[in-house]
Structure formats: C-alpha cells, structure tokens
C-alpha cells in the first residue's frame, strides 16, 4: 500500500464521505447497504491505487466500484436474479451520465435528501441525530455513543435498527412535499440541536459549554444552510450556536471554577462568532419566517449585547421568552422564561411561573431547581432556597457547577 494511495483515500473520505453515502443510499434505497458498499470500495481503492496509481477522478472511481458492490449484493437476493445483467450495465451508464451532468464535483449532491430521511417522522426521534452524524459526517458509533451517554453496543444496535427501518419501510430518499416541509425541516433542525446539546443538563436554557459534538452539529447546520439557503430557522439555529460558542472561554476561571452568565467577563466573549451570529440572524429574519430557533438566537443576542452596552435588557429577554413559549412551550423555554422574570418582573412573578409547570416534567430537570433556588433566595426565603439548591446539586453532572451551587447557597450537608 503506497502513501500516495492512502492519502488519496483519506482525501475522498474527508471531502466526499457524506456526499457519496447520500448518492449511493438514494440509489439503493438502503442506507446500511450504501455504507457497506462504500467501505468495501474504499478498501478496494487502497489496493488498486497502490498498484496502478491514483485515478484522475478518485471520487468517481470509488462511486463506480461502490455501485457495482451494491448491484452485486442486490444480485444475490432472490427477487432480483432475473434483472441482473441489465442492472449492471445500467448502473455504470447512469454513473457516467450523472457525472457528466454535474461538473462541479462530479457526484450529484443528495445530502439534504439524506438528512431528511434520517429525520423522517417514522424514525425514532432519539436516533435521528446519531444517524445524521454517522451517515453524513461518517462518525463511528463509539464516538456518538459517548456523546449520548450510552454504550457503544446499544448505539450500534439502534443505528442498525433505524437503517433497517429506512430500507424495509421504504422511506423515500426525496425532498419532502411543500405542505410537509415546515414540519420535516423542524425535525432535521431539532435533531441537529439535540446533537449540539447531547451530554448537557440543559442545552436549551442556560449556557452550554463547547464539548462533545458541538463542532459536528455546527457542520450539519451549515450544510443545511448551504443546501437550503432560504431556510430561516436553519440560520436561526446557526446564530444560536454561534452566540453560545462566543461565551465558551468565559464560563470558567483559569483554575476551572464555573462563572454564571451574569458574572462573565465580556472581554472574554469572542467577537467573531457574535458578528457571524448577528449576520445569520439578520438574514434569517429578512426571510420573514419566524420560528423558535430565531427567537432563541435573538435571546442570546440580547445577552451578548452586554459586551457593547454593559448591561442586560431583561425586559426584552422576558418578552422574547413569552414569544418562544407561545410558539414552542417546552419545559426548557418555560423554566428559562421564569429565570428571566426574576430579573424583569421580580421573584414573586417568577415563582408563579415556575409553579405553573407540571411537577412531573421537572422532577429531574436541573435548571428548574437552579431557577427555583435563585428565585426563592431573591424572595428572601432562605430555607426553601437551600432545599431547592440541594435538589439542583443532586441533579448536576458538571462538578464545577456543583461546587458553584454549594458555595452560593451554603447548603446544609446533613
């Protein structure tokens, strides 16, 4: 195996993996078979390119061999036996034709269709983002499993079950119909945001740190925007991620202590992501299709404006949360609205809002107990505040946040 061949295969994987999987999967209607055929073709490429040199168009070489693999596995199935000779010829002809008709990269881009398949309503919501991460970005199951706090075996089984479902239920590799599009788009973006927040107590309300799959999630949403530039909510989601990323350096002191948002040093907030976020949000709002991600981005935008004005406009934040709750009354939004109201309307109003949330929705939801403790403390109810803080401490996964809560509330240890 030559270094040149190895580098050429690595380049194909780096630049074209998702595009090749999407193209092959659409053709076969079978994601798992497409991934297998592509892996086999990449192995074949290593050997062949080592002896006969790297072809002029490596992508096309790989996709042609993968298509032969796909037709080969199709040929093995009983039902397809009669069609085989013509299928082989057709496969090669079609690759040839399509390569010629899409000059830019050689291979038609079906990644958006693949994203919509991964987030299809027939696929369990919890596995949609892992499917995207694997099929479109080529992440392995073990890496995804750690980010989702599950075992690699379990994640592998869930992924292959979902892929069987795509094949057996014949989920079409097509762009959704216009009347379905808003709901389907929401599914895609929700899955991407879930990947961004995987492994956190609260991706929605507070201030996620960068870790796990945030970078990969951002690549996915950028891909959606590239392929669907008029998708306002995708731009809203990117703006939201960028505004949160901007604060990533300010969330911890040099010695690792947690710094809550309102105590962060704005000089540590990164200007470049904030500027891009504002730009994306502006373009989103110009499209005139407001949605929950644009509202959440707008909320973070108001927070980050403290870098310019020196103060936080809590009334605007509370009003934006009212809008968000109208559009999408998630537990995260309800709790975050109450937290904003502590500042804008006072602790009593905030506690009323918290009491309206059904208890079973929040019994293990850390931000609820943090917000409750904060509101109770502000209302002068120290004993109740400590009890709520103890509950929050017990639900916290991040040791720095836990230490911060212990110090803030002087929680009794008995």
């Amino acid at each position, binding site marked *: 195996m030559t270094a040149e061949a190895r580098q050429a295969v690595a380049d194909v994987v780096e630049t074209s993996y998702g595009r090749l999987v999407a193209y092959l999967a659409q053709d076969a209607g079978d994601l798992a078979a497409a991934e297998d055929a592509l892996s086999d073709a990449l192995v074949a490429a290593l050997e062949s390119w080592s002896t006969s040199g790297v072809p002029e168009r490596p992508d096309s070489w790989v996709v042609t061999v993968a298509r032969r693999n796909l037709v080969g596995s199709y040929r093995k199935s009983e039902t397809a036996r009669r069609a085989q000779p013509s299928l082989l010829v057709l496969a090669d002809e079609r690759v040839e034709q399509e390569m010629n008709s899409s000059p830019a990269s050689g291979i038609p881009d079906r990644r958006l269709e693949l994203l919509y398949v991964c987030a299809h309503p027939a696929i369990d919501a919890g596995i949609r983002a892992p499917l995207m991460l694997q099929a479109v970005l080529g992440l392995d199951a073990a890496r995804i499993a750690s980010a989702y*706090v599950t075992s690699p075996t379990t994640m592998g089984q869930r992924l292959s079950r979902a892929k069987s479902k795509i094949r057996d239920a014949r989920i079409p590799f097509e762009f959704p119909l216009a009347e379905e599009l808003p709901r389907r788009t929401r599914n895609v973006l929700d899955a991407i945001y879930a990947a961004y927040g995987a492994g956190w107590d609260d991706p929605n309300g507070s201030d996620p740190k960068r870790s796990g799959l945030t970078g990969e999630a951002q690549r996915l949403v950028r891909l959606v925007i590239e392929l669907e530039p008029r998708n306002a909510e995708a731009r809203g989601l990117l703006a939201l991620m960028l505004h949160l990323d901007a604060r990533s350096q300010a969330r911890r002191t040099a010695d690792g202590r947690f710094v809550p948002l309102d105590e962060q040093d704005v000089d540590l907030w990164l200007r470049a992501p904030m500027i891009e976020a504002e730009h994306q949000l502006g373009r989103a709002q110009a499209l005139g299709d407001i949605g929950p991600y644009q509202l959440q981005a707008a909320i973070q935008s108001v927070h980050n404006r403290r870098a310019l004005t020196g103060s936080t406009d809590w009334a605007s934040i509370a009003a934006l949360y009212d809008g968000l709750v109208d559009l999408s009354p998630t537990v995260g939004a309800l709790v975050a609205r109450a937290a904003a109201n502590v500042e804008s309307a006072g602790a009593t109003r905030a506690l009323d809002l918290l009491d309206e949330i059904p208890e079973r929705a929040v019994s293990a939801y850390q931000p609820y107990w943090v917000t409750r403790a904060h509101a109770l403390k502000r209302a002068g109810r120290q004993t109740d505040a400590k009890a709520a803080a103890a509950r929050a*401490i017990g639900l*916290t*996964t991040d040791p720095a946040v836990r230490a911060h809560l212990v110090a803030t509330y002087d*929680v009794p*240890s008995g």
Partner: protein
Amino acid sequence: MTTTTSQQGRETQHVQYMILAVETEEDFAKRDDPDASGEYWAAWSGYLAALAESGVMTSAGGLMPPSTSTTLRRRGDELVVEDGPYADSKEQLGGYFVIDVPDLDTALMWARRCPSADSASVEVRPLLPPPSA
C-alpha cells in the same frame, strides 16, 4: 421488575439498577477534612435528595472507609482473615443506590450525576430479577 403505564398508555417494564459509587483515597479523606467535608457532604446529600424526591430510588447505603473493612477467605480447611478490602486498589466502593427506571440510558443519566464520577468512577449494573413464584 415493576410495571408502570406511561402517558401514551404503553406499558413500560422497569428494571432495577444498582449505581455503585467508587471513590478514591482522597475522596474518603475529604469526609473528615474540615476544609473539604462541607462541599463533599453537600454533593452527596443533594444527590440522595434528588434521587429520593424524583421517586426513582428504592434503597441506598453509604459505606465507612475501606480501612474499616475486614475480608475473609476459606482455602481448604484454612480460614484466612485479613484487614482491609477484598482487592488492594486505589479506588474502593463508597456507597450504592438502587434505582427503578425504564432503561439503561435513564440509569446512566442518574449515574452521571453521581459525585464520584468526577474523581473515581461509577458502575451501573442491573439487579437480577426476583425468582419467579
């Protein structure tokens, strides 16, 4: 195993898992260190409160440090009694929590919150189901 009915009316089989909290020597030392014991115990009592008040916990127990342990083994006719835990390891069991949840992922969610995950480790293992009648 117990059975609950979820909102959709689907029945979910619950499984009992034991969360085994393993701690380091430094963790055990914090219990009596005036500078560290406040935060140490606040973390554990918060964890216990969260488990109990969320209604998932069926039992729990904390252990005295490994220095208080005694281990015995019978080898043939000889009974050997030794000071200390069964394995000489830097990390030792410090306590356990038995929870009743629908699946491993929910159990892992609770395990992540366990304070000893930061310093040592947390093991999650299903309990054997009770023998059928």
